């Protein structure tokens, strides 16, 4: 992301499912369909939706918890950084739902979000911020 980086833009939302649509609208605006070739933008949109959903649904956020979504673009890739104050959780290290078990034989169909995120982006990096929050970076390269 060193060459031709556009200035990053950020959106801050409440850690609430009512705000999930705002995240998709934001990603759609900054990484429009066809902008990454093929359905790259759609795949990034889906990965970001899954990641933010996970924070809201499983992060145990406070009612006034906030999530920041930042998008930076260059001609070759889009980078989305998600920062939150929820319980610390590293999606790059967490175990996926067992794919050897048919989805129909599971009691719950959860755990698919993580599998989708990992398969849909080219890079996934996690760190704990200086403030003790989660920071997840998703990179989708142009096809």
């Amino acid at each position: 992301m060193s060459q031709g980086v556009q200035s990053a833009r950020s959106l801050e939302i409440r850690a609430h499912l009512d705000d999930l649509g705002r995240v998709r609208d934001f990603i759609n605006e900054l990484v429009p369909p066809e902008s990454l070739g093929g359905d790259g933008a759609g795949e990034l949109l889906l990965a970001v939706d899954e990641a933010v959903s996970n924070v809201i649904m499983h992060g145990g956020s406070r009612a006034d918890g906030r999530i920041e979504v930042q998008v930076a673009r260059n001609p070759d890739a889009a980078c989305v950084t998600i920062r939150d104050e929820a319980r610390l959780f590293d999606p790059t290290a967490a175990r996926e739902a067992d794919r050897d078990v048919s989805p129909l034989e599971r009691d719950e169909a959860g755990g698919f979000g993580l599998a989708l995120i990992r398969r849909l982006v080219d890079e996934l990096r996690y760190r704990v911020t200086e403030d003790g929050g989660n920071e997840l970076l998703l990179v989708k390269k142009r096809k």
Partner: protein
Amino acid sequence: MSNPLRIAVAEEKGNVPVTILHISGDLDSKTYTDLESKAGDLIGRGANNVLLDLGGVTFMGSAGLRAIHGIFKKLSAAGAGGKLKLANPSDAVARIMKTLGFDVIFDIHGTVDEALGSF
């Protein structure tokens, strides 16, 4: 632009009675329970063969698959040999199903008419 979830229900009498849920809008972590509970109500009132028309779905994440999984479980629990079929997925929705292995598990058809004829 995010779109609210809408579900329109129709009944078709072909080879067997089929309850069709025409779904439009975003099927995400906020709305998937609406679909699951709507289908659950219909199954509770006797719907046995259920067809989900996904043609109007503008966004679907893994939560949508959670809802479909839940509907399947409800039909199985009803114990009447009911069938669940899907029709008309967009390319994006079809890709999610394939990525997570749902494409080989569920009976997915290109059109509603084709799906109806398969019951």
